């Protein structure tokens, strides 16, 4: 898409329209965080009533609070793992925000495809919202918020920076980060003990997957010399056949590259 191809008014309008839908999602996330707070309060209260009450809290009340798959494991300090998962998630989001912010300032991004630049701006805001949601949950759980970047992938980014010379390089790096985020949160849905956190991670993972999907399509269009089709609206009739499938390569979202909950935990 040449920068001249984008209708920024349409993008603004579409963004405005999305606010109504997004407000519903934000409300759900806030409710999940509120529910999580309540769960933490009840669990802590049950612990304060001695071993018997604690057992009741984790195994009895736990039947209400936790999924059965994690109910037994809940007796092994579910709070700490939940908080570590949230901290690692926040660290991944912080890194993503940093990378996209840096990318937005690169000359070939600023003077390049306007839709790519708009995507970077919007995606940065979304990752910021995710980081805030994860840190809010950490605070409500009584943990330390995570303001740093995931150490493993910060090193990956640092190693990649010297070789970033074009938009395609940025896209490639972003695909890596979005995939790690999506895989990690998809896995955490099954790993966290609190039901509300399952919903929180489950509500963010698909959004990261969508970022990856778009980036995969953009990558294919750039590789095929079709940068002019990276536009909103695009010319669907001219899109290459592969653009219809390259954005979702798997029937099931893998979790093999998911980060362990300890990776970005605050010590």
């Amino acid at each position: 898409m040449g920068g001249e191809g984008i209708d920024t008014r349409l993008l603004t309008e579409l963004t405005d329209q999305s606010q109504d839908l997004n407000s519903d999602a934000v409300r759900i996330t806030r409710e999940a965080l509120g529910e999580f707070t309540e769960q933490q309060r009840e669990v802590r209260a049950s612990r304060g009533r001695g071993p018997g009450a604690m057992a009741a809290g984790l195994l009895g009340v736990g039947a209400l609070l936790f999924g059965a798959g994690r109910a037994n494991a809940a007796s092994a300090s579910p709070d700490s793992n939940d908080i570590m998962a949230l901290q690692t998630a926040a660290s991944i989001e912080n890194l993503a925000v940093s990378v996209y912010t840096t990318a937005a300032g690169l000359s070939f991004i600023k003077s390049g495809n306007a839709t790519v630049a708009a995507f970077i701006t919007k995606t940065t805001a979304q990752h910021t919202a995710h980081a805030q949601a994860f840190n809010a949950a950490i605070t409500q759980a009584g943990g330390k918020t995570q303001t740093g970047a995931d150490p493993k992938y910060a090193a990956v980014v640092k190693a990649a920076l010297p070789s970033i010379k074009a938009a395609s390089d940025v896209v490639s790096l972003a695909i890596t980060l979005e995939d790690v985020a999506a895989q990690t949160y998809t896995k955490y849905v099954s790993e966290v003990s609190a039901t509300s956190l399952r919903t929180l991670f489950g509500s963010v993972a698909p959004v990261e997957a969508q970022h990856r999907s778009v980036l995969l399509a953009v990558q294919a269009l750039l590789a095929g010399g079709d940068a002019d089709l990276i536009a909103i609206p695009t010319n669907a009739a001219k899109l290459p056949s592969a653009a219809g499938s390259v954005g979702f390569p798997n029937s099931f979202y893998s979790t093999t590259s998911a980060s362990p909950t300890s990776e970005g935990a605050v010590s």
Partner: protein
Amino acid sequence: MRAPKWQLPISESSLTKMTRDLDEAHREAVPVMRARAAEFSEELADTGIAQRPLGRRGFLVGGMGVGAALALAACSSSSSGSASSGSSAAAGTSGSASASSASKYTGDLKVVALATALENQAVGAYQAALTAATAGKLGTVPPAVATFVQTAMSQHQDHAKAWNAVLSGAGVPTITGVPLSNQAATLQALGAVTTVGGVANLALELENQAAQTYLFAAGNVSSAGGISTAASIAPVEAMHAAILQFVLGEYPVPDDFLGTSKAASASLLTV
């Protein structure tokens, strides 16, 4: 479908490589999901959810189950239909499970049955779109849209197989049709569409519904296998939605968080 007049702007070798990568990734993922489905079935058997007679327990285990059932019922689809049976798939097949007032699907299995029916509904919708396109009823179909439909349909078939493996493993009938009360309305809407954009919009509704249903399920089913399976499918449905929105000329990732307001209700299930 009409032969595309447009010429492929990337090399055949690049396209072949991308397709090969796609197939390899697909082959890697499917066995994992089959294993998860088997584990899920074992879990259900271990917990006694499988083949549990209706009425002994609520929707899920204990109080949480009842709450989840009520919540899922409250989380109704915006496209409910009026079909009495709703068990006909778009492709004309009927569900292998017969409708009954005493459902065979209880607890987590009700969610699994709903998921299977939604996947079959999506497969049927995409198949109907391909049939309409082949008959020239949708005008010129862009090559990317044709590829999208075929690939997304294949992935929905994989999802349905995974869920049906759970049902089969739990000793209840698999679902090969679309036993949903909104199926007649869905078919009617599909039949009325005359453009690619119209099909894409309907598909977008189904994809969003599926993704949000899985998000709701991940937060409300009780078995670990069910949670992980739902969690691994929701992102894929969301990816389908993103590409559809791009093709439709809309911003592909409009929301910061996935919601559940469009999630399907278990009350749609007619078996």
